[in-house]
């Protein structure tokens, strides 16, 4: 089953999927995750089946779904 990362951007969002058993795809996803974190995005692992969502500081290839969002600022 493919895992998915959703990165928010001005087009709405960009999706990236990877097979956790395929090393090259995991590497691509990890690179995208780390690049997004360097740009200041926050990562959330989306809980499924009643599991609570939580923050992610490092890439977890086993996380089935994650969303990366820009920082919120007070307005």
């Amino acid at each position, binding site marked *: 089953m493919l895992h998915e990362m*959703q990165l*928010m*951007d*001005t*087009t*709405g*969002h960009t999706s990236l999927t990877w097979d956790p058993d395929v090393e090259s795809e995991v590497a691509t996803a990890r690179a995208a995750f780390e690049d997004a974190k360097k740009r200041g995005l926050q990562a*959330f692992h*989306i809980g499924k089946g009643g599991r*609570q*969502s*939580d*923050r992610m500081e490092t890439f977890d290839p086993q996380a089935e779904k994650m*969303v990366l*969002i*820009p*920082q*919120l*600022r*007070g*307005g």
Partner: protein
Amino acid sequence: MITVAAYFSLSDCTNATSTTCGAGSFIYYAAFVDGTTAATTTCCTSSANSSIYVYCVPYVGTGTSCTANTITPNHVTQAMVQPRVQPQITEEERERLRVLREEQQRQAAEERRQREAAMGRAKSLLLEHLNEHQRETFERNGWFVVEGGKSKKQYRINPAAHAGNVTEMNGDKPAHSYCAHIPYQFPSFDNALAQKLALEVDEHAFLKVANKRAA
């Protein structure tokens, strides 16, 4: 030296057929490009010559009737004569402007299309992350409610606005509004999802950055 005080278009001249002249007032002359003047006190001479310049100069005569002799081209230097009438543009220039205008319209339409596509994608993403009850509320009211991860308080999020769109609810009544958002260039539905995740996962961090106001 005569100072050119004002400039008029040819259409202004049609209303200036009777001009009272006196000290400090103005008379109107139509002058051809080569500097000769029209021997008339009215502005509207033959408009066959599209290079007619119209200008207004202070009256320097002593009587109340204006004559062409009052002002001669010698009194007006070429530098002072600036036509209000639009100069004729060449066909080439007209075509260049047409192409430019079309390109600008095409770009504006493309930008509009991209903005609408981004809004559509962002709305789909938000709906994907709402539970069934939140989705029903959103479809019905345009807003949805999330529970704060720490306090279990209810927060209403309205994606129609980008800022000040989070309301802490006290039962059915709004208690406070909070303003914390992602940058404005992101679609507002993405903003609503970011706020939802922040409140559910790290409510304390959200409340720390948000500006709080009475509802």
